[in-house]
């Protein structure tokens, strides 16, 4: 089946058309360069996203900002947010501290992106 998507590799935003049979991308057209071909393949077969989120801090009303250390599967994003919703961190926290290990079994940790507390 034909799938249409916009490449995000550069500001050109080439409009891509890919032949996708449900598991494989067999052809990509419309791409101005190789980045587009690669992007279409990945985005259709195994789309991934970085997740940046906010987590509760015990004893404070302000939240802690966190991120996944690597992109995780796009279909897991909301489950990842839900998992983070159950977390509360205790200050002090440093950038890079692991807040949630191996989120949803992806092998990816969620880490703090800011320092809280002295």
């Amino acid at each position, binding site marked *: 089946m034909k799938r249409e*998507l916009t490449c995000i590799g550069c*500001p*050109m*935003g080439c409009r891509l058309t890919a032949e996708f049979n449900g598991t494989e991308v067999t052809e990509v057209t419309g791409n101005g360069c190789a980045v587009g071909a690669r992007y279409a393949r990945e985005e259709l077969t195994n789309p991934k996203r970085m997740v*940046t989120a*906010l987590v509760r801090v015990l004893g404070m*009303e302000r939240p802690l900002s966190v*991120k996944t250390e690597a992109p995780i599967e796009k279909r897991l994003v909301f489950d990842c947010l839900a998992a983070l919703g159950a977390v509360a961190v205790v200050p002090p926290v440093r950038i890079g501290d692991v807040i949630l290990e191996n989120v949803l079994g992806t092998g990816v940790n969620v880490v703090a992106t800011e320092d809280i507390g002295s």
Partner: protein
Amino acid sequence: MNMKTKRVDLLIIGGGPAGLAAACAAREAGVTNLLILEREDALGGILRQCIHNGFGLHTFKEELTGPEYAARYIARVQELGIPYECGAMVISLSPERRAVYVSRTEGIVAVEAGAVILAMGCRERPRGALGTPGWRCAGIFTAGTAQKLVNLEGRMPGKRVVILGSGDIGLIMARRMTFSGAKVLACVELMPYSSGLKRNIVQCLDDYGIPLLFNHTVVDIHGRERLTGVTIAEVDGKKQPIPGTEREIACDTLLLSVGLIPENELSAMAGVALSPATGGPVVDETLATNVPGVFSCGNVLHVHDLVDFVSAEAARAGEMAARFLSGERAAGERIPLIAGNGVSALVPEVLSERPEADVTFMFRPRAVYRNARIAVFRGGKQLAVKRARILAPGEMAEITVKQDAFCESEGELTVSVEEVGA
């Protein structure tokens, strides 16, 4: 007057990405008596609330979140022992480079500076400035204010959201509100294109099925006390609402991402000439304003898209301020630059007659240009040319002219863009 007075060689007003990078560069260039004044309770500026990633690809070859990017510079500031005051708001600046600030720890303090770097950033255009008619109810926020409430304070402004403006701040907040449990109903964009990054359109709107409506705007606001809905309408070529195209969207929150305005109140007080094209100070290639010893960088000079370019520009301002302090002055007259076809918000806007290094001109393309050519002409002679597959208003563009090219030419200097075909 017996007000407490500090004397510094270099005063940096603003401790966001611009101020931090400028301070580090000035310190590394040998300025030791310097001071950063930051009005918030912590350094980092707007980066503190930009908890999404996409920062640092150029500067650190890594993709960082805003707070992480800021932390790198804050660590360097501390490593270098650069003095700074937080919770310190500068309330006046004179052409003689005397600033007055107030802070909760020190009260009111005067600073006499040998040089000043203006790095105050920008503010957001509010509903009032748009003149959107209707009720003046609660529930209307600029996107950045909502971002601060959510990301720094953990407060949700609302549950059913419409976003006016598809610039990056609006797009980012579409995702953030969605992640925080709100329903974002639409992103409404006046122009036929978005000024935001394609990546953000895909990952902030498309990923969540949020419709992006080009050529539309909000024409009426409903709700006496709290917002209950907005009326949107399509607009014509002159950006006027087309009668009959109105429809209502029930919502309790309207986020506005309709323009950033450099905050130059202090600059004006100091007699700094401002450019109507950028909203920021008129500067030459050393980022010097018309007031001797006063430099400018970052969003207060012109609104940037990438913090990496802010850091690079600010580092240059720091270096130039250091040179100024050691007695170096740009030689010769200043020559004006002309923003030619397709060029808006040109920085620098004036040039020393004999620049001492290559000069990089930055600007905003006025429209989307494909297979374009950026060129710099002086007196009919082409000094530099650069091809670009695409230029868009949402992406700051640049072209560099080599130093020797200036020596061999005379007359007015023009930067312009044209489409040349494939």
